[in-house]
C-alpha cells in the first residue's frame, strides 16, 4: 500500500459497505414502515400518531435530555403459551378431571409444562369447585404451541371453553415495564427517536400504562421524592411556576403536602412545557400485539382500540400494580 489512491479506495470500500449495511438497508427496511393491522385481527391500525400536546412533550423530553437516564426499550426473553379457562361449561366434573390430568402431565414433563398457582393450589387441597371459581383464569404455562393446542382441545371436549394465550416474559416485563418487547413500529411517528442507553431511572417505554395519571406525573416532575421514596431523580421545578394566588386558586395548581407546599398565598402551577411532557409520558403505552411481537390481549378488550390503555390490560402484567411506584 504505497499509493494514496489505494488507501483511499480501501477506506472507501470499507465505509461504503458499512454505509449500505447500517444506513441504506435500515432506511429501506424500517424507515419505510407503514401503519399495520395489529395481529389481533381487529381492524385497528398501529401505531397511531401521538396527540398534539404529547408531540410537544417529546420536544421537552429531547431538550432536557430525559433519554440520558431513561431508556425506552423493553426486552423480553421469550414467549410462552398459557392455557386459560374462560368458561367452566356444564360438565364441571369432567373439566376438573381433565385439568387434573394436565396437572399430572406437569409432573411427568416439567420441561414442557409448568403449573401456574391456580392449578398448583388445586393439586394440594382438593375442593374442586375452588378450581373453577374466578374464571377466566390461566392454569398452565408451556413453550410448545402444538401440545398446548392439544390440551385446549382436551379441555374443550368437556364442554368447557379454554383459550390459548401468548404471553411474553422476561425480567423487564416482570418488573411491569411493559407488556411485550419494544419494536421499531412503536417509534414510527416520533422524531427524534430517543431509545436511550442507560437505566439510571426506570424504563419509560410503557409508562403511560403504568402511571396514566397526568396529575401524578406533574407531581413527580415537581418533586420526585414526594411520590417515589428514595428516588434519585432531580426535580424539574423550572417547568413550574410559583405565583401569588389571585381571585381564587387555579384548578391546575399542584396539591403539595408538608415541606413541598408553597407559602400561603402562593400556588404552584405547571408551565405549558410541563403539561406537554406529562401528556407525552402518558401517551407512552405500546400495547398493540404485532406480528413481530405477538401477545394475547385479554379477550374482552381485543376489539377496543389500542389507544385506550386502561381497557386493554392483558392478563400477563401480573406484577404491574405492585411496582407502580417505581417510575
Amino acid at each position, binding site marked *: 500500500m504505497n499509493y494514496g489512491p489505494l488507501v483511499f479506495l480501501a477506506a472507501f470500500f470499507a*465505509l461504503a*459497505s458499512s454505509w449500505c449495511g*447500517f444506513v441504506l438497508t*435500515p*432506511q429501506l427496511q424500517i424507515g419505510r414502515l407503514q401503519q399495520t393491522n395489529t395481529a389481533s385481527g381487529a381492524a385497528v391500525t398501529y401505531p397511531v400518531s401521538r396527540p398534539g400536546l404529547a408531540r410537544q412533550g417529546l420536544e421537552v423530553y429531547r*431538550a432536557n435530555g430525559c433519554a440520558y437516564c431513561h431508556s425506552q426499550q423493553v426486552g423480553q426473553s421469550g414467549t410462552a403459551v398459557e392455557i386459560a379457562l374462560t368458561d367452566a361449561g356444564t360438565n364441571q366434573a369432567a373439566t376438573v378431571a381433565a385439568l387434573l390430568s394436565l396437572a399430572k402431565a406437569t409432573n411427568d414433563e416439567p420441561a414442557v409444562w409448568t403449573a401456574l398457582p391456580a392449578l398448583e393450589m388445586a393439586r394440594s387441597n382438593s375442593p374442586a369447585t375452588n378450581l373453577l371459581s374466578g374464571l377466566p383464569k390461566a392454569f398452565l404455562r408451556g413453550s410448545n404451541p402444538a401440545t398446548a393446542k392439544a390440551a385446549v382441545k382436551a379441555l374443550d371436549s368437556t364442554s368447557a371453553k379454554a383459550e390459548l394465550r401468548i404471553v411474553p416474559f422476561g425480567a423487564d416485563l416482570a418488573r411491569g415495564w411493559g407488556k411485550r418487547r419494544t419494536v421499531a413500529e412503536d417509534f*414510527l411517528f416520533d422524531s427524534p427517536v430517543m431509545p436511550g442507553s442507560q437505566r439510571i431511572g426506570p424504563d419509560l417505554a410503557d409508562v403511560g400504562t403504568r402511571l396514566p395519571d397526568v396529575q401524578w406525573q406533574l407531581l413527580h416532575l415537581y418533586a420526585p421524592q414526594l411520590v417515589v421514596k428514595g428516588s434519585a431523580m432531580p426535580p424539574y*421545578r423550572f417547568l413550574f411556576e410559583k405565583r401569588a394566588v389571585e381571585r381564587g386558586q387555579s384548578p391546575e395548581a399542584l396539591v403539595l403536602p408538608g415541606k413541598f407546599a408553597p407559602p400561603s398565598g402562593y400556588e404552584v402551577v405547571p408551565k405549558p412545557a410541563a403539561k406537554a411532557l406529562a401528556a407525552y409520558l402518558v401517551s407512552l403505552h405500546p400495547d398493540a400485539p404485532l406480528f413481530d411481537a405477538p401477545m394475547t390481549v385479554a379477550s374482552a378488550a381485543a376489539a377496543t382500540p389500542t389507544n385506550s390503555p386502561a381497557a386493554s390490560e392483558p392478563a400477563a402484567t401480573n406484577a404491574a400494580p405492585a411496582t407502580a411506584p417505581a417510575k
Partner: protein
Amino acid sequence: MLFLSAAVWLLVASVFGLIASIKFHAPGFLADSACLTYGRVRPASANAMLYGFCLQAGLGVALWMLARLGRTMLAAPWLVIVGALCWNLGVAAGLLGILTGGSTGFENLEMPAYAASLVFLGYLMMVVWGVLTFHQRRERQLYVSQWFLFAALFWFPWTYSTANLLLLGFQVRGMAQAVIAWWYSDNLLVVWFGLIGLAAVFYFVPKLTSRDLHSRYLALLTFWMLILFGSWGGIPASAPVPAWMPASSVVATGLGVVTVISVFLNMRRTLGGKCLPFMSDPSLKFIGFGLVAFVIGGFASGIMAWPALGQLTLFTWFIPARDLLNSYGFFAMVMFGAVYYIAPQLVGRQFLSPKLVRAHFWIAAAGVLLFVVPLAVGGILQGLRLRHADIAFTDIAKGTLPFLRVSTMGDLLMALGHVLFLANLAGLVLQFYRARAVSAWKEATAEIQPAEATP
C-alpha cells in the same frame, strides 16, 4: 525538517477548545436551573470533550504527522487557521445550543444543525489542505501511520454529513434514525479514534524508542480489520430493530479483538518485549498508557459482545466506563503524549517544568482508573440485579451510588489533569511569544539605531 507557524496556531486553537472542555467537564451538576439540568450538562460535557478536545487535538496531531512524514510544509496554512476558527466557533455555538435546550436528542451528535454545519465547514477547510499536504509529500514511500491518517481524514466528513443530513436535514422516519445515530457514534468512537490514535502509536512508539516497527504487514492487518469491522459495531443488543442488525454488530465487535491482538503483537515485538523504555519519556508514558487502555478496552468490548454477557451490561454504568476507557484512556491519553512531544518542537523550546508534565500523567492515569474500574464493577453488579424482577428498582439505583461517588473522584482528577495540561501548554506558548516579542523588539531597535546613526 520544516515547520510552520500554522500548526502552532492550530495547537493554540486546540488549547482554546480545551478550555471549553475543562469548563464543562464536571457532570452531575444538579441545580434548579434549566441550563444546568443533568440532561443538558451531560451532553454538553461529552460534546466539549469529543469535538472540543478529542477531534481537534486529533486533527492537529494528524496534520503535523502528515507534514512530518511527507517531509513537506503544510499547504495553505492560513486556510487551516480559518478552518480551526470556524471549528471552534461551531463547537462553542453547539454547546450554547445544547445548554439552551437545542440538543438534537441523538447521543454524540447533540449539536444543533447550525453548529454542526460550522463544525463541518471548519473540518473541510482543515482537511482539504491536509489532503493536499499528503499529495505534495516529498517522501513517496508511505509509512504505516499515513494510511491510518489518510483514511481518517476522509472517514469523518462522510459519516458526519450522512448522520447530520439524514437526522436533521432530510429526516428519515422512526427507528431508522436511531440506527443511523448508533452507526455514526460507532464510526466516530471506534473507527476515527482508532485510526488517528493508532497512527500516533505507530509513529511515536518506534520513533521515541529508536526502533523499527516490527511488521508492516501486521499493521496492514490492523488497518483492514479496523476499517472493515470497526464500522459495523455499535448497535446495542437491546435495540428494537430487526435482529440481523444487533447480530452483525456482535460479530463485528467480536472480530475487533483481532485488531487489538495485532496491535498488541506488533508493539510487543517492536519493543522487544521490554516495557522499560515507556517510563523514560513523558510522551511515551502517555502513549504507553493509551496502548494498554486500547488493549484492555478492546478485549472488554470483544468479550462483552458475547450475547449472554452483553445482555448483562445493557443499560448499566458499564457502558460509559467502557466508552471512557476508549475515548479517554486510549485516545485522549495518546493525544496528550503526542502534543507533549510536538508542542516543544513547534515552538523550539522546552516545557517550563517537566515535573508538571509528569504530574499530569500520574493524575490523569489515576483519574481514568478511578473512573473506569468502579463504574465497570458497579455496572456489572447493576446488570446482575436488573435481571431479578423482585429487587426494587430504587434499590438497584441506590446500589450504584457508592460506585458513582468514587468515579466522581476520577472525574475531579481528570479535570485537575486538564488544568495542568493547559498550564503546561500556556507556559510554552507564553515563552514563545515572549521570545518573539524580544526578537521583534531587537529587530525594531536594530532598524531604528542605524536610522538614528545616519544623520
